[in-house]
C-alpha cells in the first residue's frame, strides 16, 4: 500500500522532498546562528586566554607588564624560542618531534661564535656557517628518520645528547666571547622608528591588496567570496594590530630586530603550510602516513626537507641567542625544545600529527613568553615558575580535550 503511493505520486514526492530539503536548509542557517558550536572557537579562546593573562599580570605588576619597555623585552625574549616553535609546529604536524632542538641551537650558535672569536671571521660568514651547521644537523636527523625509519623520538633524543656533546668538545665548556658589534646587532638592535612605521604601513597596504586580490580571484573561479563587511573587518583588524604594535614598540626603542626576523619566518612558514604542496603534504603525512603513501606523496623527501628546515631554524635561533648573550655559553639552549613543544601544544597542535597551525603556535609561544615574563616581574622564584608552567600546559590540553569532546 505504502509502495503504491510512492510509485504513483513520484513527482509529488520529489516536490515534497525538495520542500523538506528547503526546510532543512532554513533550519540549518538558524541553528548556525544560534549555536556557537559551528564556529572554530580555538582562536578566540586563545586570544581570550592571552587577554586574561595580560590583565592578570598588569594588575599584579602594578602596570609594568604592558608598558612599552616590558612589551619590547617580552617580544624579544619570545622571538628566540618562537623561531624554534614555528619549525617544531610543522614538524609535529608531520608526525615527528625534535628533541635535539636545544642542542642544535647550542652547537650551531657555538660554531658561529667560535668562527668569529677564535678565527676572526666576519659576521656574515659566521652566521652563514652557523646556519649551514644547523642544516647539516637537520640532514643527519632527517636521514635516520626518513630513510632508516627510526622513530624521530629516538633519533632526536640521540641528537639531544650528541650535539651538546660535540658542542662541549669544541668549546671545552668555556664561554666564547666577545663578539663583534655587527653580530650582536642582530639580536640586540632595533629598527629605526621611522623605518618601523613605514614598514607597518607598507604591510597594511600589502595585506589590503592581497585581500582584495583574493576576492577578485575567488570571483573569477565562481566561488562566493567573503562579504564586503567581513573584508573590511579583516583589513581594519589586521592593520589595527600591526600599527598599534609598532606604535607601542616605538614608544620604547623601536621594533627589536629578532622580532622582525621571527615575524618574517612566521609569515613564510604560514604561507608554506597553507598554500604550498609541501605544506599540504606535511599535514597529509601526519594525518595518515599510509593514505599519504597510497596517494603518491614522497614521504621520505618531505620529512627530510622538514628536518633540514628545522635545523636551519634552530641555527638561526642559536645565532640570535649567542648575539643576545654576547657569547656562546655551555648551557645555551637547554630545554628549549620542551618550551617549544609546550608552546605548540598550547597552540592546539596535536601530538598525533596532522593537526595544528602556525598562527596558533605563535600565539602559544606568546602565552608561554608572557607567563615567563610576568612571573619574573612578580618575583616568583624560578622553581615555582617551572611548576606553574607545567600546570598551565596540562590545563591547556585538558581544556582542549574537554572542549573537543563537547564539540563531538
Amino acid at each position, binding site marked *: 500500500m*505504502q*509502495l503504491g503511493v*510512492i*510509485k504513483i505520486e*513520484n513527482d509529488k*514526492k*520529489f516536490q515534497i*522532498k525538495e520542500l*523538506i530539503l528547503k526546510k*532543512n536548509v532554513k*533550519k*540549518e542557517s538558524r*541553528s*548556525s546562528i544560534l*549555536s556557537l*558550536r*559551528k564556529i572554530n572557537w580555538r582562536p578566540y579562546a586563545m586570544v581570550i586566554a592571552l587577554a586574561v593573562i595580560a590583565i592578570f599580570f598588569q594588575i599584579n605588576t602594578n602596570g609594568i607588564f604592558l608598558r612599552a619597555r616590558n612589551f619590547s623585552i617580552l617580544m624579544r625574549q619570545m622571538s628566540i624560542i618562537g623561531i624554534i616553535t614555528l619549525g617544531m609546529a610543522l614538524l609535529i604536524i608531520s608526525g615527528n618531534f625534535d628533541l635535539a632542538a636545544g642542542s642544535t641551537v647550542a652547537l650551531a650558535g657555538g660554531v658561529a661564535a667560535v668562527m668569529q672569536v677564535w678565527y676572526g671571521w666576519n659576521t656574515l660568514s659566521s652566521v652563514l656557517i652557523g646556519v649551514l651547521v644547523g642544516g647539516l644537523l637537520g640532514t643527519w636527523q632527517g636521514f635516520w628518520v626518513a630513510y632508516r625509519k627510526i622513530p624521530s623520538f629516538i633519533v632526536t633524543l640521540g641528537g639531544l645528547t650528541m650535539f651538546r656533546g660535540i658542542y662541549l668538545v669544541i668549546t671545552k665548556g668555556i664561554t666564547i666571547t666577545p663578539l663583534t658589534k655587527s653580530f650582536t646587532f642582530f639580536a640586540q638592535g632595533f629598527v629605526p622608528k621611522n623605518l618601523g612605521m613605514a614598514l607597518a604601513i607598507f604591510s597594511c597596504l600589502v595585506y589590503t591588496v592581497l585581500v582584495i586580490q583574493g576576492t577578485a*580571484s*575567488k570571483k*573569477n*573561479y*565562481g*566561488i562566493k567570496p567573503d562579504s564586503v563587511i567581513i573584508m573590511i573587518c579583516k583589513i581594519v583588524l589586521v592593520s589595527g594590530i600591526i600599527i598599534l604594535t609598532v606604535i607601542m614598540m616605538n614608544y620604547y626603542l623601536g621594533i627589536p630586530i629578532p622580532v622582525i626576523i621571527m615575524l618574517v619566518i612566521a609569515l613564510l612558514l604560514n604561507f608554506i603550510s597553507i*598554500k*604550498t*604542496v*609541501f605544506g*599540504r*603534504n606535511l*599535514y*597529509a603525512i*601526519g*594525518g*595518515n602516513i*599510509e*593514505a*599519504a*603513501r*597510497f*596517494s*603518491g*606523496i*614522497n614521504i621520505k623527501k618531505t620529512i627530510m626537507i622538514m628536518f633540514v628546515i628545522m635545523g636551519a631554524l634552530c641555527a638561526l635561533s642559536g645565532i640570535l641567542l649567542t648575539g643576545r648573550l654576547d657569547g656562546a655559553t655551555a648551557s645555551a639552549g637547554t630545554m628549549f625544545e620542551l618550551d617549544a613543544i609546550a608552546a605548540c601544544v598550547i597552540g592546539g597542535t*596535536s601530538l*598525533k*600529527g*596532522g*593537526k595544528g597551525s602556525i598562527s596558533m603556535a605563535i600565539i602559544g609561544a606568546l602565552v608561554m613568553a608572557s607567563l615567563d615574563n610576568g612571573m619574573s616581574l612578580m618575583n616568583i622564584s624560578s622553581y615555582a615558575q617551572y611548576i606553574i608552567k607545567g600546570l598551565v600546559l596540562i590545563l591547556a590540553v585538558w581544556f582542549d580535550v574537554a572542549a573537543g569532546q563537547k564539540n*563531538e
Partner: protein
Amino acid sequence: MDEEDIVTKYILEVKDLTKEFPGVIALDNVSLHVKLGEIHAVIGENGAGKSTLMKILSGVYPYGTYKGRVIIDGSERHFRNVRESEEAGVAIIYQELALANNLSIAENIYLGTSKGSKYGIINWDQKNHEASEWIRYVGLEEQPSTIVMDLGVGKQQLVEIAKALSKKAKILILDEPTAALTENEVEHLANILRDLKKKGITSIFISHKIQEVLKISDTVTVIRDGKTINTLSNYELNEKGIISMMVGRDFSHRFPERKYQKTDQLIMEVKNWKLAKPKSLDKYVFKDINFKLYRGEILGITGLMGAGRTELVNSLFGVYGGETSGEIYVCGQKVMIKTPEDAIRRGIGLLTEDRKRFGLNLSGSIRSNISLASIAKFSKYGYINENKEIRECEKYVDSLKIKMTSLDNLITKLSGGNQQKVILARWLMVNPTILLVDEPTRGIDVGAKYEIYILMDALLKNGIGIVMVTSELPEALSMSDRVLIMREGRLVKEFDNNNLTEEIIMKYATGSD
C-alpha cells in the same frame, strides 16, 4: 491491545529522537520499535542517519545531546557513555572498525573488560581459552594470539563480532557488518544471528545489501533523510519495494546498461607476475599471474577472501612487502613500479579496500582528502591555487552527490558511504588511464552504487581501463567485460562475461570444479 501489552512486547523502543550536528539534522523525530528476540534490519541511503541512531543507542552520543526517548525493556534509559549501555545489555559493532591493530585477537576481545582478572592481574591462559571459544563460534580459524593487524578486513570484522558477543549482550547492534564479508561469511554471520535469536538475543543490523536483508531479517525499518519511513515485516517486502522506500522514488534497475564497450587496444599487460613472501622466497602470496587489460573495459577480479586479490592490485600499484618478479607493460612500454608515486606517474590509480587505514586522512578536511593525490595539478612551483582546487572538488562533490555542508569540514563528519565517495573522487580527479578499484562500492547505498557504476562506464568513454576487484558477484557479472577468478594466489580461470553465472564463478573460486 492495551498499553501493558505493547510495553512488554518491545525490547527496544525509540521515540521521537532528534539529533542535530552543527548545520545538519541527522535524525528528525525518528522512531524505532524492536521486538524481543528478532533480527531487525535498519536500512537507508548514505547519510540517512543510521549510524547516528545506533551511536545514540550505545551511548556514544550521550543523553542530553539529543532530544527524544530511548526505552529498553520498558524503562527509559539515559546513557551517558558506552559503558552504561553495555551494562544495560547493548553491544555495538561500529561501521568503522575499532580494533587495536597491534594487539592480539584475544586481547582485543577482552579490551576494556576487567572480568577474569584478580587484583588487576589478568590470567591470560584463561582469557585465551575463553577467547578461543568465541573465535571459533564466529568461524575464525586463527589462534587467539594472532595479531589483528595481520588479518584482512573481513576477519577483523569477525573479531569485532566475537568481541561484542563476549560481552553477553541482550541487544547486539551491527553497523554494516557484512560490507567487508564474502558471501560465505555473510551466510555464516546469518547463522550466528539465527543462533543468537534462539538464545533470546535481539540483533539490529544495518546493511546496504538488500538481498541479504531480505534473507536474514524478520523486520525492516527504512530511514530516509533522518526520518523513519516505515517498519515492515519480512513477508511484506521485496527488493524493489525496499529500494523505492529508501530512495523515495521508483528504482527498477540496480545496474545500468553499459554504454561504452571494450576496444581491442591493449593498455596494460601483466606477465608471470609473482610476489614472494618476505624472507622466504619459495613461499608466494600469488604467482603465475598473466592478464591483459584493454581500453574501455572493466576487468572483474573475483574470488574468496584471502585469494590474493588485494595483494595483487596493491603490487601493481607499487605497494608490497616481499619480492616481485615478472613484467608489467603499460601502453606497450615495460615499466618498473616501485612506489605509488611511480604508479600515479604512469597513469595508474588505486582505490584501496580498507578506506580507514589506507585511504582517509581523518584529521583532514573533505577538500584536502579529495585533492590529496592530484594536488600537483593545482599548483605551480609548489604553490597551490586553492580556488582552482575548490572548483574541481566541487565538481566531484556534485557528480558523486556527496552529502556534506562544506568542503572545509572535517572528513569525519561525513557518513561512511560518503567517505567512500570522497576517496573515489580522489582517484577520479587524478584522471588515470588505468584505474584499479578494490571493492569500489563497499558501504555505498543502492542509489549511489548505481551512480558509481554510471561513472565507471563514463570513464571508459575516455579510453581508460578499469580493473575491479569485487566480492559481490552480481556486481562482477553486471559490470565487467571479462571476469578473472583467483584462488589461493593463482588465476584459475578467465571468462568472457556471457552466459556466466554466480554458480560457475563460485565453483572455480572455491575449487570445487
